[in-house]
């Protein structure tokens, strides 16, 4: 399906050549820094700068396609910018937030369920499911091709392209597992004692237990007969263990195992389909006995029944890695997996530091979710950080630490996930910090309003560093100079407004008061949001501002909801999301309650067909 040109994202095109950050109140500091008395010393640089209109934009070097690939579905509206009559109307969802708050309105009639395309198990789900299916077996390694990541999430059902490599690996994996089963038949068969005397009976028992669990539902009579037929033929030809192995191979390659097959007609999902939705959302894993029992008894037909199961599942240890995975995808922790830094500029940086920073950020969100009721506010403002001996210097902390330790960090410098050094280092370059990457991150992941990518044909990067210009400019100065006019200004005015707020954090996420001997200016501004516009000073204040924003709250709901159903941002229906976002707000922004709310929502519990 091609996106029409009318859905093209756009930024506010400013008529004037120069942005006027002075309008943004406190950001006047920024203006003075750029245009004050020392302005003249930069004049030579401007001769060749020529800014964006002739082709300078962004810092494409490490721009992440996904971060930049998101669409803004609606032209930003704010009092300071003229409305664009050609801007497309918002088609959907809080991901398009801007303008009026969507009236919480439930979907009606046939639209009750979310239109979710058939989902294949992600690699993570596949591995976990194998482990749960065969808990007593030592499983072979599985080498599946990586899941395609769309808008940060790896479970986008529409993008799950079956490839030859994937099908081969499913085959190879199924074969390897079947060989393990054959080697450990006694651990797997429910009837190892009677296998010799009654092979058919034993195989029947195995089909009823194993295949049924692989399908995550009872088998239909015809399915059962087919599997028994496969067994009998194979048993005659190859013997008992290979025949059992073939049952395993067949089940593990069946669409009923690899895909979550649901009804294609609208209406309430049957209990087993709903059980799978729940278990893959809360656990990244197949349903356990209790959940399957709830499906069988009809308990999942009621909201209360679903809620009981959902709350139980949240207390199960399997929820921990699953929740960590949602955070990792939502907040792009994958960016922390590779953070090369210049060894010339940062000789103390090494893999151990990077790994400790990553673990620290993971522990931070873990604590917020499990110990602080998943509070969105805590996520954005809590001042505790997990620090170890490798990362203490980055946090300006002294003393010996043994392993990651929860430390109360300087609240003026560290508050919330946005000030976690790991994330700051990930959204930075090898040699410098990046207001742009950081600004885009906030817009995309927390406000659901990612700017469009740079327009085609626009190239280049930010103004030179002092080494080549012979002039001392802060990172902020260089970015501001580059973006001050024309095409760039339209989008970068918003991006840089967020990004400049991070000026106190260098390429490693360290706090700094000066850069190249110049005082740091962390004044930022927010515009084109529904309820967070205005100026702020530094990332700590930015976190507090965002914590109080309904747009951020709706965006968080949208991101978790999308993940729960494997949907792309464009496929989220307003009417499905609105009641969920409302309930999230009513729960004081508890992400834990958000999971329950999503699980008990009409959208989650009803089939919606595949067309939105």
């Amino acid at each position: 399906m091609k996106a029409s040109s009318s859905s093209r994202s756009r930024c506010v095109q400013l008529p004037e050549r120069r942005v006027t950050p002075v309008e943004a109140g406190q950001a006047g500091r920024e203006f003075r820094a750029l245009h004050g008395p020392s302005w003249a010393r930069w004049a030579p640089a401007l001769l060749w700068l020529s800014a964006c209109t002739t082709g300078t934009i962004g810092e494409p070097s490490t721009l992440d396609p996904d971060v930049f690939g998101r669409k803004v579905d609606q032209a930003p509206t704010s009092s300071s910018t003229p409305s664009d009559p050609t801007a497309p109307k918002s088609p959907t969802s809080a991901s398009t937030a801007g303008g009026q708050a969507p009236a919480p309105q439930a979907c009606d009639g046939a639209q009750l369920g979310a239109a979710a395309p058939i989902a294949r198990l992600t690699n993570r789900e596949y591995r976990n499911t194998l482990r749960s299916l065969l808990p007593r077996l030592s499983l072979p390694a599985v080498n599946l091709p990586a899941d395609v990541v769309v808008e940060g999430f790896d479970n986008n059902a529409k993008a799950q392209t079956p490839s030859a490599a994937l099908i081969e690996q499913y085959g190879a994996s199924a074969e390897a597992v079947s060989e393990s089963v054959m080697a450990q038949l006694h651990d797997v068969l429910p009837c190892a004692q009677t296998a010799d005397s009654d092979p058919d009976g034993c195989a029947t028992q195995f089909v009823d237990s194993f295949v049924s669990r692989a399908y995550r539902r009872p088998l239909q009579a015809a399915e059962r007969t087919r599997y028994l037929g496969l067994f009998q033929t194979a048993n005659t030809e190859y013997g008992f263990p290979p025949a059992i192995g073939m049952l395993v191979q067949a089940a593990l390659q069946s669409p009923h195992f690899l895909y979550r097959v649901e009804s294609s007609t609208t209406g309430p999902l049957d209990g087993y389909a709903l059980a799978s939705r729940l278990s893959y959302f809360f656990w990244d894993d197949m349903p356990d006995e209790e959940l399957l029992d709830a499906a069988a008894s009809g308990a999942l037909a009621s909201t209360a029944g679903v809620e009981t199961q959902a709350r139980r599942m949240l207390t199960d240890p399997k929820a921990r890695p699953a929740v960590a995975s949602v955070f990792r995808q939502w907040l792009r922790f994958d960016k922390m997996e590779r953070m090369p830094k210049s060894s010339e500029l940062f000789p103390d940086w090494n893999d151990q530091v990077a790994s400790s920073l990553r673990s620290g950020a993971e522990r931070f969100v873990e604590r917020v979710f499990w110990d602080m009721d998943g509070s969105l506010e805590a996520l954005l403002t809590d001042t505790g950080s997990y620090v170890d001996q490798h990362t203490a210097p980055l946090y300006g902390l002294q003393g010996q630490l043994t392993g990651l330790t929860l430390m109360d960090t300087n609240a003026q410098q560290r508050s919330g996930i946005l000030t976690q050094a790991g994330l700051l280092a990930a959204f930075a370059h090898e040699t410098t910090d990046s207001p742009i990457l950081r600004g885009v991150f906030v817009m995309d992941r927390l406000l659901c309003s990612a700017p469009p990518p740079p327009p085609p044909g626009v190239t280049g990067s930010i103004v030179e560093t002092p080494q080549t210009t012979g002039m001392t400019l802060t990172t902020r100065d260089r970015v501001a100079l580059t973006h001050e006019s024309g095409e760039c200004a339209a989008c970068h005015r918003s991006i840089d407004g967020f990004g400049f707020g991070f000026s106190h954090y260098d390429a490693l996420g360290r706090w700094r008061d000066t850069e190249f001997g110049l005082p740091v200016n962390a004044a930022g501004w927010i515009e084109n949001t529904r309820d967070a516009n205005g100026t702020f000073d530094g990332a700590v204040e930015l976190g507090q501002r965002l914590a109080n924003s309904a747009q951020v709250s709706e965006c968080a709901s949208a991101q978790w909801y999308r993940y729960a159903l494997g949907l792309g941002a464009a496929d989220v229906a307003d009417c499905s999301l609105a009641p969920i976002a409302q309930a999230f707000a009513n729960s004081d922004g508890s992400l834990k309650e958000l999971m329950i709310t999503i699980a008990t929502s009409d959208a989650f519990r009803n089939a919606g067909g595949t067309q939105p």
Partner: protein
Amino acid sequence: MSPPRIHRRSVLQLLGVSALASLAPRGSRAAAQAAIPKRVVFFYTNHGSHRPAWLPVGVGGAAPTETAFELGKIHQPLAAYKKDLLLIDGLDMLSSDIQSGPAANAHIRGHCHSMTAVEMADSNLAGGTSIDQHIAEALRQAGVVTALPSLEIGVDPNIESRISFASSAQQLPIEDNPQNTWNRLFPNGATNQTMPVQDTRAARKKSVLDFVAEDFAALAPKLSREDRVKLEAHADLVRDLEKRLSVTAAVSCNSPTLADAASRSDEAAYYQATGDNFMRLIQAAFACDRTRVVTFNMEAIPDELCGYNSSFGTTDMHDLIHKVAQSSDPLAKDSAAVDCVVRFHTEYSKQFAKLLGYLAAIPESDGTTALQHTMVLWCGEIAEGNHDLHRLPWLIAGQGGGSVRTGRFLQVPRSPEARGHNDLFVALANAMGSPITSFGAAEVCKGALPGLS
């Protein structure tokens, strides 16, 4: 270092298999496989090139002509293969020029257009089948059954390559681990290729796949149209795998020993070692006719390999490349900066030469080498560091079994109208036996690019 030569026959004999018997075609595959196979490789690099150092130079001060030219600076590592090259100058990604849809990052846009030559599906994904997949499918339809229909591999695990697409928006994964590719190419392991038990195992696997395919068929009618399309694609691949299993069982083959994986923390060493492992796999795959279509993403040369350092004042190599390609930037006139960018592309030439060496080391039954039966297209996502998608710096190595006349510099006329890379793809597809007349966006496709042979 010269790459190891493959002695196919001796290896097969060592394994206790008669080379002639195992390679002798049977049944319907005979026609398709009897001759020396033609293969195609899409060798993919990023950041285009640096045109002044890419262009060949004329002889004795004259402008370069079709046959009288010397390789440019970037291509010096390819000097030994000059007679095997067809440099193509003047093709544009016209499909990008007509793109009316969503804006996209210039690199993503180039990635998506580079091998599909059609408008994008959205700002992230290509809007059609890529040329490698088209050729793989055409070969399949022509009755060629190889162990793998195509290989999609890449050196850098951190790059999300939007290169190969099964169809619109259906991006194919790029494998970055040579060991996984080895496992796919040699599923029975390095030895014991012909033990009887393996045959039983393959037979069992086939029965299972047959059973599974029926499962899919039974389910399809119960699904919505969109879901059905997805599951039918899956089911087709299951059937296809079933067919290919017999190839795996019938032909035994030499498998290369891979060098140990280098640590990723030493990016230069990792890049070189991984690249080399993949090239040896390509060599083995072709020598044993395991596949005929390879997409090989060599992105991205680590900064260290091209002598990049912070003295340029840029954020990284990528940034430097952009600046050097911008005439308004002082770095465009900074000889050290330009040299660094040229070295970046020259490093790719070295890698390309290495791959050609591996292919030229495969002897064919007629006394030629596999390079003469292969077309290696060196392509990428943009033309120049400034993101231009015109005048692509592309070239073909190898003669493709007589389909390409090499040792030439092909200057595609740009008037009255420039030609799109679609046309080159039509010519490549034709050479590989797919009789198409148009590929990708029809409105910019004028048919097969003339002048290849």
